[in-house]
């Protein structure tokens, strides 16, 4: 038995080992064309990646540059401090000193309108800031191979139900090898080649999409603080900021409904605080009887003198004053709730603004694929802090008072959104997408502060697909 098998194997091997047969002449053309297409596809992919990288680099450095330029325009205020130690009210022994400071602008070339103008321009500047492919299996198995010719395997009960599932080439469908069609062999091969090429072309459905986005939105925060920090903290209001973000978006669309998006966005986050006329401000108001403290909104917060600087515990972290704002008073009191013995009182509003350059990595899924499309998006953003400013807006205008300490340079946020797209043409489309962006880490490294901004924006943009 074994020898019989070995002999049989040897006969097959000897007869077939050097067997040769000329393939159809058209086959080489198909190989050459496929190789050329592969080479072309590689080149195009390289160009596309280079274009995307260049746009991202331009957008990023552009945003960074302009942001830097704007920051330089913020005037620096220097102070000339005149201290009038004054014991005021004999009935209230707690109050020891009231220090009055008057401030003069160091740079006389910058007036108030310049200050507010600059800041307004900074917010408005957002609108104008830079935006935002196997099987060559090719011809599946035709039924030509159906064992109906003279060598059919009669004793074999082949359950070939599954082979019915196999796809047949359109031109040869239903034809049996023994049933000669009106096509010659050469014509059949030609038809088969055409079908193969058509499939190869139709497989190539991936594309790129680039667009510009503008997003008006509202940014606020969630925060928590350690107790000691919170005792000395400024009043925590829930006010957020209305602002506009803008950016450039780049999407790689797969052959299916998925796409991957990146880009560069310029975004502002922050918070506003103001105090109701509470205890100490009320004292200040009563004692001073000065018009600024008798009505309206107050910033009334504990401050500490640290080294040669004043610091204030704000919601987003410790603010280092670079200058004392005009129209503000520092009250020294022994009866503060926290450990800081001084308070800064001024009528107006305190705000912290953080400028981010965000680089998103989103996954998008097209729910409805038609002229009016619907898609969902979700992913993460790397947020690079490019601006960190604290302001007081009072009767003297919007004044930059300093920076928030311990802000991380790079932070991460999660985004989710659902958008509607409208195709204007084969290549151009409009999109509008409400999106929520929430920072998954506290942007402040201070362990006492957990400050996580979020932003809800309506992203609308124009896209070009290629």
């Amino acid at each position, binding site marked *: *038995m074994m020898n*019989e*098998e070995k*002999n*049989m*194997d040897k*006969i*097959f*091997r000897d*007869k*077939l*080992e*050097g*067997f*040769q*047969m*000329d*393939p*159809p002449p058209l*086959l*080489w053309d*198909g*190989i*050459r064309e*496929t*190789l050329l297409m*592969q*080479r072309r596809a590689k080149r195009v992919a390289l160009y596309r990646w280079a274009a995307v990288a260049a746009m991202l680099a331009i957008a990023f450095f552009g945003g960074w540059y302009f942001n830097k330029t704007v920051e330089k325009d913020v005037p620096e205020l220097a102070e000339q401090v005149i201290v009038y130690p004054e014991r005021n009210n004999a009935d209230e022994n707690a109050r020891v000193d009231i220090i009055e400071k008057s401030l003069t602008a160091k740079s006389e070339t910058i007036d108030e309108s310049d200050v507010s103008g600059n800041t307004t321009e900074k917010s408005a500047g957002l609108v104008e800031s830079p935006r935002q492919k196997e*099987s*060559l*299996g*090719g*011809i599946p*198995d*035709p039924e*030509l*191979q159906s*064992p109906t010719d*003279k*060598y*059919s*395997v*009669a*004793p*074999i*009960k*082949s*359950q*070939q139900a*599954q*082979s019915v599932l*196999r796809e047949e*080439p359109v031109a*040869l469908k239903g034809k049996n*090898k023994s049933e000669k069609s009106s096509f010659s062999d050469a014509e059949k*091969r030609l038809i*088969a080649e055409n079908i*193969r090429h058509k499939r190869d072309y139709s497989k190539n459905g991936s594309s790129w999409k680039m667009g510009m986005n503008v997003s008006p939105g509202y940014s606020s925060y969630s925060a928590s603080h350690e107790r000691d920090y919170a005792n000395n903290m400024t009043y925590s209001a829930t006010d957020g900021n209305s602002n506009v973000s803008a950016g450039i978006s780049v999407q790689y669309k797969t052959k299916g409904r998925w796409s991957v998006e990146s880009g560069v966005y310029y975004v502002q986050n922050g918070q506003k605080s103001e105090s109701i006329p509470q205890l100490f401000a009320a004292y200040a108001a009563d004692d001073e009887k000065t018009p600024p403290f008798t009505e309206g909104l107050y910033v009334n917060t504990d401050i500490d003198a640290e080294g040669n600087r004043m610091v204030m515990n704000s919601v987003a972290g410790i603010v280092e004053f670079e200058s004392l704002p005009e129209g503000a008073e520092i009250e020294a009191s022994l009866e503060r709730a926290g450990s800081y013995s001084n308070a800064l009182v001024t009528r107006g509003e305190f705000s912290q603004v953080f400028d981010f350059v965000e680089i998103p990595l989103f996954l998008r899924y097209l729910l409805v694929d038609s002229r009016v499309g619907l898609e969902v998006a979700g992913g993460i953003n790397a947020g690079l802090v490019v601006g960190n400013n604290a302001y007081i807006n009072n009767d003297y205008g919007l004044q930059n008072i300093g920076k928030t300490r311990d802000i991380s340079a790079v932070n991460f946020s999660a985004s989710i959104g659902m958008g509607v797209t409208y195709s204007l043409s084969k290549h151009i489309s409009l999109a509008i997408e409400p999106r929520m962006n929430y920072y998954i880490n506290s942007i402040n490294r201070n362990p006492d502060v957990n400050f996580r901004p979020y932003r809800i924006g309506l992203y609308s943009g124009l896209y070009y697909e290629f």
Partner: protein
Amino acid sequence: MEEIKKIIKECISGNVRAQEKLYRMFAPKMFGVCLRYSRDRTEAEDNLQEGFIKVFTNIDSFRHEGSFEGWMRRIMVNVALSKYRKNNILYPVENIGDHDMPQFSDNIFEKFGAEELIELIRQLPERYRMVFNLYVMEGMNHQEISEMMNISVGTSKSNLSRARDILKRKVRDLYDEVKLNSNLPA
């Protein structure tokens, strides 16, 4: 040998003429390989095309350590195997025990030409065809076949045995038929 090296070098740099030259040199032999592993001629042509595209795409990875023809042949066999894995269609076949087979003189195979033998192989169920080709023509052992096809060694052995039995039965039927029709001397 040196000529092949030169052609390969030119193919690596993307020279279309060199690619065509290489194709003309090896295509008939590789088509013979593809025919053995395919159900029909069309599938063999597809495999040959896909195989040559892989050859030209990966030719820079050829280390000149073995024969270039052997390297190409492995690529053609791998194309056929990957298609088999992808389809992974199992043909349940009637159990044909060895004892069912009448005594058979293997000299009968000598009376058939290469094309007729290829035709017989092509009619085998896909998995049997693969195992028969890998064992008989590529000289692989059952362990290697089982790893390549993701089947057990026992299955490989059983498939080879059944492939042989089918071939014997077919040859006997065919031979009887031909003998009846043409009084071919045995």
